[in-house]
């Protein structure tokens, strides 16, 4: 299997002169237009390894979702020795710690959170580690030292939620392809040149940049040391396909040894790796079975990534996700497809290893994708519910690059050239209630937003409500922008992502990814106020406790422009307000309509809304219509969501769609063909994202009752996938009550 560099035969280009992975891919990729028939099953070694993993995953689940924690060592690139599952069967090596599924402390996001995560499990952070933070500051402490009372109020009253101010922000995607292509030494050389180029009069920007580049170089050096513990030399480029996969994984592993960001995406490595695999297949160095074995074992490792999280974290990100998001497919700007045989091989892991939520496999859907690939994706969705889809034809021209990955759940991210700062989200229905309560929060009545006039009594007037709501949204945007400035300033200072940033251009462009939750409630509430008669029911201190609604009104999710246009309008108003504020490092504001699983928590913390939703009831996830209100069939529901403009929500518009298999057709062939039709149809309407679940409600109810029978049952939630049985019972019930499209 081992080959020398002489066996690698690549077309040269700009990538030889400068760090330019994209050019390497363009010059050397072999687009594949065929079907899935060439694929192989798992090797014996892979099966043996995965059996061990499954046993350990079962133990992890039995042990309350956590197998082991190291309480002594702060995790970084070199703090743990090598770890193995079963060395003799491992083709791709490397674990985050020295033991399978053992979680490590990464306290620079916030030592308190680490302490509570341990305390919940009856453990304690070692004195030595605690002592460090008597002298050093962490991100969490630093952020709160700069927060003002306004931000604190917005935060504690659930107007701004899930802010990465006590955990790591994540989302930054290293270009993990750089290590196999160039080797670390060449990357260090390039970083040194970047440093030298920061000259002249010093500015804050230049000083910071120099400090950052120096951290990156130290990370690169540590990566070599880490690889060395596994007997691997990554100072030079990969010499064959095996090494290319192995080095890519070590690059990713570096990131998750150093950082426990909410989402730690992989990028778009599959078609890059295909170049090496094609080369070795052609040279007769490996067989298809071996090629699949590399990918199976790589993906197996990605499934085993773990971070240490406290219970409270599960409310916003249910099911212990890691968002190892890999974007697969899409088209090149030159008209060729980015699909390669290795795109298929990644999907094949869902058969060889069974269904799984991670890595978060994301299909970049183009109308022009080869039919064989479209069909295989649909088949995998029907069999495993493990894929999500995003509109390549929309993102590529809108955002500019055809070399992009997906950060976190659904966000476009040009690889190696730009990064994004994660902004969590604002609770829009909460903002509406504050607008209707003179700036007071609807629960206890404390004033959160100043200078909001009190509404007159009686039936709500649409124009007056809109006026006050706009003022409220402007205030929310102002405080939101301020908080994000502080958070990212401090994150850079106290928990800088040196490993990921070492694999990105030295002074990249940045997006600040704001978010909004509850768009469907906003649309329906304003529609009710406009088309029905809505009268607030107020308590003795004048707070709305409920709403009387007389008459019917159009509801979002039925392809009705009267209400769908309200969702569009509010989204635009909110992003326009956010764009008015300067962001840290002059980042460009983007907005997502996404909730992760926090739609349940938002519901719990939000009073009754004018659309008829009662206090405590869950929000719909992402940009989905509210449960059960989309009554005109699946396509009408999809169409409503497709009307939201990507220009206004470039961070992503998440839609989670569940169908029973029968509703797609009476046999597998029809189901595949019709699912492809749904995707083509939805994305032709400029929709952005679709999570696809194909399963029976009964299956979920049975899994709710008998979790032990469904260890690998995977479902797509808002922008990612989870093991159903690892969701909290509240989240499980919420998923079961979601609209299933099951007409037959």
């Amino acid at each position, binding site marked *: 299997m081992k080959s020398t560099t002489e066996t690698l035969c690549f077309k040269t280009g700009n990538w030889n002169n400068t760090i330019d992975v994209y050019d390497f891919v363009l010059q050397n990729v072999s687009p594949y237009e065929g079907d899935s028939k060439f694929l192989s099953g798992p090797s014996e070694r892979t099966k043996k390894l995965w059996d061990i993993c499954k046993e350990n995953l079962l133990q992890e689940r039995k042990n309350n979702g956590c197998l082991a924690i190291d309480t002594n060592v702060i995790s970084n690139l070199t703090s743990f020795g090598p770890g193995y599952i079963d060395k003799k069967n491992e083709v791709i090596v490397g674990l985050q710690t020295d033991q399978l599924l053992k979680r490590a402390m990464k306290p620079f996001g916030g030592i308190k959170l680490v302490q509570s995560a341990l305390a919940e499990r009856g453990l304690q952070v070692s004195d030595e580690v605690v002592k460090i933070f008597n002298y050093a500051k962490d991100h969490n402490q630093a952020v709160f030292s700069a927060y003002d009372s306004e931000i604190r109020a917005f935060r504690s009253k659930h107007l701004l939620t899930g802010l990465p101010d006590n955990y790591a922000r994540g989302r930054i995607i290293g270009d993990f392809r750089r290590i196999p292509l160039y080797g670390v030494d060449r990357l260090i050389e390039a970083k040194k040149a970047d440093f030298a180029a920061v000259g002249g009069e010093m500015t804050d920007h230049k000083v910071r940049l120099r400090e950052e580049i120096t951290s990156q170089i130290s990370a690169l050096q540590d990566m070599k040391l880490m690889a060395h513990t596994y007997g691997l030399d990554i100072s030079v480029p990969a010499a064959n396909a095996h090494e290319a996969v192995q080095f890519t994984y070590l690059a990713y592993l570096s990131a998750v040894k150093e950082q426990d960001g909410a989402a730690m995406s992989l990028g778009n490595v599959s078609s890059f790796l295909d170049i090496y695999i094609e080369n070795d297949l052609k040279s007769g160095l490996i067989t298809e079975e071996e090629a699949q074995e590399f990918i199976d074992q790589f993906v197996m490792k990605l499934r085993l990534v773990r971070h240490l999280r406290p219970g409270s974290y599960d409310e916003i990100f249910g099911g212990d996700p890691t968002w190892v998001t890999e974007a697969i497919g899409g088209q090149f700007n030159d008209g060729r497809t980015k699909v390669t045989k290795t795109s298929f091989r990644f999907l094949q892991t869902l058969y060889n290893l069974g269904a799984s939520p991670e890595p978060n496999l994301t299909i970049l859907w183009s109308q022009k994708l080869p039919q064989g690939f479209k069909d295989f994706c649909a088949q995998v969705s029907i069999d495993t519910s493990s894929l999500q889809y995003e509109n390549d034809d929309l993102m590529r021209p809108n955002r500019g690059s055809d070399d992009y990955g997906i950060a976190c759940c659904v966000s476009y991210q040009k690889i190696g050239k730009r990064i994004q700062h994660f902004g969590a989200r604002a609770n829009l229905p909460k903002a509406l209630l504050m607008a209707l309560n003179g700036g007071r929060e609807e629960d206890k009545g404390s004033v959160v937003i100043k200078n909001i006039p009190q509404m007159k009594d009686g039936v709500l007037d649409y124009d007056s409500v809109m006026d006050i709501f706009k003022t409220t949204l402007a205030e929310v945007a102002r405080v939101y922008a301020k908080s994000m400035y502080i958070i990212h300033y401090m994150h850079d200072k106290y928990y800088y992502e040196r490993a990921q940033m070492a694999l990105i251009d030295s002074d990249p462009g940045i997006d600040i990814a704001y978010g909004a939750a509850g768009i469907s409630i906003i649309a329906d509430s304003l529609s009710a106020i406009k088309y029905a008669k809505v009268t607030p029911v107020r308590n003795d201190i004048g707070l709305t406790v409920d709403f009387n609604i007389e008459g019917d009104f159009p509801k979002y999710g039925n*392809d009705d422009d009267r209400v769908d246009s309200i969702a569009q309008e509010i989204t635009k108003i909110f992003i326009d307000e956010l764009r008015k504020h300067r962001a840290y490092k002059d980042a460009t504001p983007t907005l997502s309509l996404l909730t992760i699983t926090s739609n349940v928590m938002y519901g719990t913390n939000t009073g009754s809304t004018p659309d008829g939703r009662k206090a405590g009831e869950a929000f719909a996830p992402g940009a989905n219509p509210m449960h059960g209100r989309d009554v*005109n*069939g*699946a*396509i*009408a529901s999809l*169409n409503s969501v497709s009307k939201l403009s990507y220009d206004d929500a470039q961070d992503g518009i998440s839609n989670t769609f569940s169908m029973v298999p029968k*509703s*797609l*057709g*009476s*046999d597998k062939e*029809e189901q595949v*063909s*019709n699912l*492809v*039709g*749904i995707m*083509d*149809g*939805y994305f*032709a*309407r400029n929709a952005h994202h679709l999570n696809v679940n194909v399963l029976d409600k009964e299956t979920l109810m049975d899994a709710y009752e008998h979790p032990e029978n469904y260890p690998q049952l995977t479902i797509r939630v808002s922008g990612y996938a989870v093991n159903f049985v690892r969701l909290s019972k509240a989240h499980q019930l919420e998923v079961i009550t979601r609209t299933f*499209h099951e*007409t*037959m």
Partner: protein
Amino acid sequence: MYFPQQQYTDDSIDVHNPDLLRIHSIETLGTHDGPGIRMVVFVQGCQFRCLYCQNPDTIDIHGGSFVPIEELVEKALHQKSYFGKKGGVTVSGGEPLLQREKLIHFFDRLHENGINTCLDSNGRVLDSKTEQLLERTDLLLLDVKHINKEWHKKLTGLKNKTTLRVAEYRESTGKPMWLRYVLVPGWSDQEEYLHEWGKHFASYKTIEKVEIIPFHQLGKHKWEVMGLEYQLADTQPPTKEEVNKAAEIFRLYFKNVKIK
């Protein structure tokens, strides 16, 4: 008869107004009535009184509501991107032929917009208007519920003469059709009649597919809600073996037999 026979030429169906269609409901992601993804318009009103009717709420000619055909065209256009190469609009029911004049207009409008048309019918009426409609029907789904006229009458309240003539007419036009057959234990699963059914159509060249639809009880609650006497309340769906057996018989006569 569990529901009285009704004349459809009265005002109830507003026969001469080409702009309004009396419909029961619309399904936007239809995957069971014709090829691909389809918008299925269920029209209101039917003269068959099938014992196994799964949509008894579509029988009453006075039920449902009038919807402007332009509104239906508009809806279809909103769904066009999902139809792809195979899909389109299916009109089912109820019995669409009762409103054939209006449907001529509807199908013309769909064709003007490049949308494929499919008609799911029991072949109740054959006249020049039916012929004109079939001319505009890209695919006919014809339910031939029994080959024996007596059994057909027992099963549906009417004889099968017109239905067979519609099939014959369609064959003469050379345009494609699928035949559909609901398999009801004790009612439509007699071996000799399955053979007879097959023989009757075996020489037809326009039959692209035969679909066997195993009887099920998913429509039972509708009968209960409507307070109708449901004779098949205790009839069990056919077993897999029974369905396969019927399919084997049909496969003696047709290349493409599918179990739904």
